[in-house]
């Protein structure tokens, strides 16, 4: 799956891919202050799974945990399940439903599930649907943190670590053969990284078409821009 990091204080973005086996669960956010944890499980195309180079991977399941509330929300491409203590509520992506309690709300419609906690912390999970009978591609999910400034700067995880300011500089811009893919050098976290200008799509506002976002693509599973290496973020299960 692709990760897009809109860097605070800069009108620019960093992006990277994490290439892992389908079934792998990645820690996206862990915020010790709010008690929120978000993990995502990877799914892969149904095509040639032996050829990992050609295989595309996506988020297939998202698990959101709010420990203080004893609340777990599991979003898959088929259903949305709320585990509220021992009680469990299950909804389909065909439902249009708003679930509200004093401490959180979940809004589900056929395109997105929006989970909000208290004042301002909001996650949006988008369902990307492919043609039902497509023999290769699967439905997949997109996960967005809205108003990430409401999250604590002590957060970590593949996304969480970017909830605090990140300084980077880009230099040595080199147009290369393809003018749309400018190569450059990024100085970030005391690393000098070879990056490529690319475009990803942000589907928060337009679920069907998305909005083009220009970003500096960091190769090798985001190595250098993420703390440690990507395998540090692999966890054993969704919750």
């Amino acid at each position, binding site marked *: 799956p692709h990760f897009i990091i809109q860097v605070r204080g800069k009108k620019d973005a960093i992006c990277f891919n994490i290439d892992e086996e389908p079934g792998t669960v990645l820690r996206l956010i862990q915020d010790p202050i709010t008690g929120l944890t978000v993990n995502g499980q990877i799914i892969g195309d149904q095509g040639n799974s032996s050829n990992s180079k050609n295989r595309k991977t996506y988020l297939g399941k998202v698990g959101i945990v709010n420990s203080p509330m004893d609340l777990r929300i599991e979003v898959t491409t088929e259903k949305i399940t709320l585990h509220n203590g021992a*009680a469990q509520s299950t909804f389909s992506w065909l*439902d249009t439903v708003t679930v509200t309690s004093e401490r959180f709300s979940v809004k589900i419609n056929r395109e997105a599930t929006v989970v909000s906690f208290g004042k301002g912390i909001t996650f949006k999970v988008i369902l990307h649907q492919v043609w039902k009978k497509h023999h290769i591609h699967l439905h997949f999910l997109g996960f967005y943190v809205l108003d990430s400034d409401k999250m604590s700067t002590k957060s970590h995880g593949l996304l969480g670590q970017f909830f605090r300011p990140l300084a980077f500089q880009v230099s040595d811009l080199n147009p290369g053969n393809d003018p749309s893919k400018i190569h450059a050098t990024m100085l970030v976290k005391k690393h000098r990284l070879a990056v490529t200008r690319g475009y990803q799509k942000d589907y928060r506002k337009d679920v069907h078409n998305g909005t083009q976002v220009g970003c500096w693509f960091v190769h090798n599973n985001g190595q250098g821009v993420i703390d440690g290496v990507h395998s540090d973020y692999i966890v054993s299960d969704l919750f």
Partner: protein
Amino acid sequence: SRGMEEATRLPTQADDIEVYSTKVSCKVTSRFAHNVVTTRAVNRADAAKEVSFDVELPKTAFITNFTLTIDGVTYPGNVKEKEVAKKQYEKAVSQGKTAGLVKASGRKLEKFTVSVNVAAGSKVTFELTYEELLKRNKGKYEMYLKVQPKQLVKDFEIEVDIFEPQGISMLDAQASFITNDLLGSALSKSFSGKKGHVSFKPSLDQQRSCPTCGDTLLNGDFIITYDVNRESPANVQIVNGYFVHFFAPQGLPVVPKNVVFVIDISGSMYGRKIEQTRDALLKILEDIKEEDYLNFILFDSDVTTWKDTLVQATPENIQEAREFVKNIRDRGMTNINDGLLTGISMLNKAREEHTVPERSTSIVIMLTDGDANVGESRPAKIQENVLSAIGGRFPLYNLGFGNNLNYNFLESLALENDGFARRIYEDSDANLQLQGFYEEVANPLLTSVEVEYPENAILDLTRNTYQHFYDGSEIVVAGRLVDEDMNNFKADVKGHGALTDLTFTEEVDLKEMEKALQEQDYIFGSYIERLWAYLTIEQLLDKRKNAHGSEKENLTAQALDLSLKYHFVTPLTSMVVTKPEDSDNQMAIADKPGEGPEESVTAAIAYQTSYQPPSSPYYYVDGD
């Protein structure tokens, strides 16, 4: 559901009257069932003979038509206001011209009977049509047909076509009399996508109780059950400006209950009734969930409580409750008022003192087998007291055990407190009836359910607020659109769940919907409009039970108007079969029996007089 039988009134005539065809045709579209029972018979005797036509149909059904065809001449039925029909009927009776039809009540069914004298060599065709909305109970819809022909029928068939726009998820048909493979092969059932089909066509040989026997083994219950796919919690259908909204969410946690059982232990409960009550309560205790709270209030001349307050259904408390229930004994008289008020007060107090979970719901279940005869025994005063004590906060369910009670009172009492009444029939399975009732209300998934539509877009809405939504049931709301040409509308269903509040939103594209439904040849006519009329009448009649004065008059007028417009035989109307060229020459037929004494008297009237020439028959269908 319905049953049917053909019979000559005198056994000796059986061979003279040949019932050569009986067909039951059911078309169910979106839970709304339109059923036609047709029977053809011929009199092979040398003299005129009498032929009876009996059909058992569900109490919840409304007859919509009955026609009689004698030697090719058809006499259609007309629905008239009951009083008008009654006068015509009485006039006919006074002239000695009646042949009659009676309906009597049973557990689930009521009986439609008509007899007619048929000239030698003549043929007669009876055709009865009735409609009902199938209600979802414990996760399925059920059609109940009583099959009981009195003789072998050459051409016997039951054909059921079901069309459900949501798609059918399961379909089954079972008959209590199918005990061998031979008869089983006459039954076929299938479903695919939106369509389901059940057919039962036993040949003459298959109907015989033994290879050489002349009597039939077709005698018993024929039950069709099905359910629909529920990919989404709601489904809205619109045809010709009328809409119906089905709502049955799944996958929600059960809301914890605070349940008070108010049990009559008066002397009349002596013997099997008290034993069955104990059995049922012990079974119910097994099903109570640990997060629920409960108490038992026993009433005879006085009131006894198991605990002073509601207690949680912990394993220890349940064990203690079992011991308490095992020791319930009958005694004394019947103090319904104090029994109920004690239970209600306990629930109110628990809520006020926060001794039950904030997000829980309260239920009172009362079981009684008789009328109040000690303490406050005036029904109207008890109703007033209970209504005031509950104050709309929770529902009251009344179970009337046996026949020696004022069921109308129990029903009124329950209806005005957002519950309903149920009869428990004195029979070997009374404990199962009690337990079955509890299972229906054991799993509330939502409380304070409100279905909202855009203001100014909807007219003539049926009931749209419910205290509870129970797992396995379904909420049905129907109405009329102000503007048939509107393109879309939105419906919100709001309710309180076990831990959260929920709002389900359904957006409907009217044009798409109408197009999709029009493509289906399974749909009979304006089924949504009739479904709406059926529901509206049913609800008006319920409201009428507790109304007085001008409000009652107004509700009666509305229900009567709709009954006449949509040709429904309801408690307010009668159906009269008239010889077309002679409007005076009529005969009264059926009655729709209620549960109360007044209706029972009416229902019990049977008229049967001497032979009338077939050229001037008159019949009367009554609904009370």
